[in-house]
């Protein structure tokens, strides 16, 4: 990379005479990553996500050599891969672990982007393409889940596809198109297989290219308040080598997990034991849980009453989830302070509150503290109580750390979320009533802040 691009000989010269590569090399030589008072660690997460995606493509291609979609072959071929094919268990384990790690790094990447307000103009489309990539990643997870055609796959898909019928007008059509029939059947698997190995990968490669292109065009976001970074790190070779080093670390973590825990850590939602073959005529088994990144959705579906403002419960839950995701995607346009390149502590607090909201739902979905065993079901109220204590404990520690180390002073959204958790878990109010009260308190708090003009206080993001 550091070689002089003017040399006329060699392979480079041959290519340069034909395709004019010099401007590209010049661009790469001058590409810099901003350095500021902020930590640079957040700049590497996109690269880590890309690494895990590449691992998905590689291991997925290997799995395709043996996997056969079909009523009598899907389950059997996965069993063959894991028990008979040399290192088949490793390839499947790598594929599963890499999928989970990809989601982890993707979500961390998005949250760090939000906390640093890197979505602010002119990088709105980087955020939006990233958001669509997140939905594609969730689509990968959901469609891949069905392919082993085991019990868990069957019910996860039954629930996941059933929820699309809540879409007004075309819900039934969508349901039929997704399932390839009225019910989940092997037709559904064929459709999901096509999605998982052709449509989603093509869409992902296209969008990743667009995402990278806009990043190359604009460079990485400098810290808030600096239109031009005070100094930079050369991308080649300084940053690229660090990226490479991180990929090696990712590879070590991935292979260690894949080798020592080939079927996951045995936590519901993070395990991929093949289990029993799907039987559409068997009832759903106790303790059935979706993947960990869908647990909050699962728990919301449980918390919504049968009817909600004239809608059926699942419709209400899905409307809320869509609204939340829509707001998340529209963040660059909602956060007007960041648009003016000003600190926007409220949005940092929204990020923290979102983590608390999701964390509490996840703990409840795991029935933490709810007791229960093979015979007795966990008690949801008892579980909510214990989960609330944990969540509020985490919130207290996180808030103290934010105040002490990040000098943040804006905790209104976190406070409202904590209030909801306390009202539901400790005072025993229903989840939605607790949410309504907390939203009312939040609205009053925002009005008071606005009236006092305190929302203009200078606080670090």
């Amino acid at each position: 990379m550091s070689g002089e691009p003017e040399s006329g000989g060699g392979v480079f010269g041959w290519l340069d005479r034909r395709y004019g590569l010099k401007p590209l090399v010049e661009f790469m030589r001058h590409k810099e990553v901003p350095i500021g008072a902020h930590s640079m660690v957040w700049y590497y997460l996109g690269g880590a996500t890309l690494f895990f995606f590449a691992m998905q493509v590689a291991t997925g291609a290997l799995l395709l050599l043996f996997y056969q979609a079909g009523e009598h072959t899907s389950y059997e071929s996965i069993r063959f891969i894991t028990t008979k094919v040399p290192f088949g268990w490793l390839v499947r384990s790598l594929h599963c672990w890499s999928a989970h790690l990809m989601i982890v790094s993707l979500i961390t990447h998005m949250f760090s982007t939000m906390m640093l307000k890197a979505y602010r103009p002119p990088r709105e489309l980087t955020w939006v393409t990233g958001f669509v990539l997140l939905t594609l990643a969730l689509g990968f997870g959901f469609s891949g889940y069905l392919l082993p055609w085991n019990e868990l796959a069957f019910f996860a898909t039954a629930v996941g596809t059933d929820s699309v019928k809540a879409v007004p007008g075309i819900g039934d059509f969508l349901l039929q198109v997704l399932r390839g029939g009225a019910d989940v059947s092997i037709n559904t698997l064929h459709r999901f297989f096509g999605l998982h190995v052709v449509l989603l990968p093509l869409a992902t490669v296209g969008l990743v290219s667009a995402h990278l292109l806009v990043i190359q065009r604009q460079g990485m976001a400098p810290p808030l308040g600096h239109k031009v970074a005070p100094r930079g790190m050369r991308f080649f070779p300084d940053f690229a080598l660090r990226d490479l080093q991180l990929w090696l670390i990712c590879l070590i973590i991935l292979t260690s997990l894949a080798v020592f825990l080939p079927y996951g850590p045995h936590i519901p939602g993070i395990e991929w034991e093949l289990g029993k073959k799907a039987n559409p005529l068997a009832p759903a088994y106790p303790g059935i849980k979706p993947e960990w990144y869908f647990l909050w959705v699962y728990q919301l579906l449980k918390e919504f009453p049968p009817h909600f403002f004239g809608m059926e419960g699942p419709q209400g839950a899905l409307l809320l989830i869509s609204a939340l995701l829509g707001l998340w995607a529209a963040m660059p346009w909602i956060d007007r302070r960041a648009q003016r390149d000003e600190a926007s502590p409220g949005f940092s607090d929204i990020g923290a509150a979102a983590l608390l909201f999701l964390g509490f739902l996840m703990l409840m979905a795991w029935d933490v503290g709810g007791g229960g065993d093979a015979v007795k079901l966990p008690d949801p109220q008892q579980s909510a109580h214990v989960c609330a204590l944990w969540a509020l404990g985490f919130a207290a520690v996180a808030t103290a750390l934010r105040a002490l180390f990040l000098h943040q002073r804006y905790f209104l959204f976190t406070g409202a979320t904590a209030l909801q958790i306390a009202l539901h878990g400790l005072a025993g109010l229903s989840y939605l009533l607790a949410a309504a009260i907390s939203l009312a308190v939040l609205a009053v708090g925002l009005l008071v802040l606005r009236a006092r003009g305190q929302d203009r206080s200078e606080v670090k993001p």
Partner: protein
Amino acid sequence: MKTTPPDVVHTRRSLLDYLLGLGFIGFAASVFYPVLRYLKPLAAAGPGGPLKLTADELTKLTHEHSVITRLGTGRVLVFEDAQQKLRALDARCTHEGCTVQYVPGDSVIWCACHNGRYDLDGRVLAGPPPRPLAIYGCTRDADGSVTVIPPKNSSES
């Protein structure tokens, strides 16, 4: 011959643009309509009428007090209550479509996915299901066989 006034030329261009636009819409429709029809699955064919349980299903019903069978494209839960009365309900939870089960000890129908509970007539007792389970007819014939009859207003497709 008189030259055409400019506004007439403009109108003609607009008309062509309009026709071109219409052509594009027609083209898009002719592409997407077959694709959408291709994606929508054919109406499933299956015995939608009364159904006799197989010998295996009867054995399961005797030993486990319940069995789930396929009727048309739907799934039906056939069970024997504490009074040994045969009953049949739609086996698909009205919440999110998981398959429910009969819990003989508690005399309830339970869905493990989101903890929905119904009574033995399919009415919601607790949890998030928004609607009751549809009731199917179920008779034990003289020869010991069991027949499941879909509800009259069954919308199985």
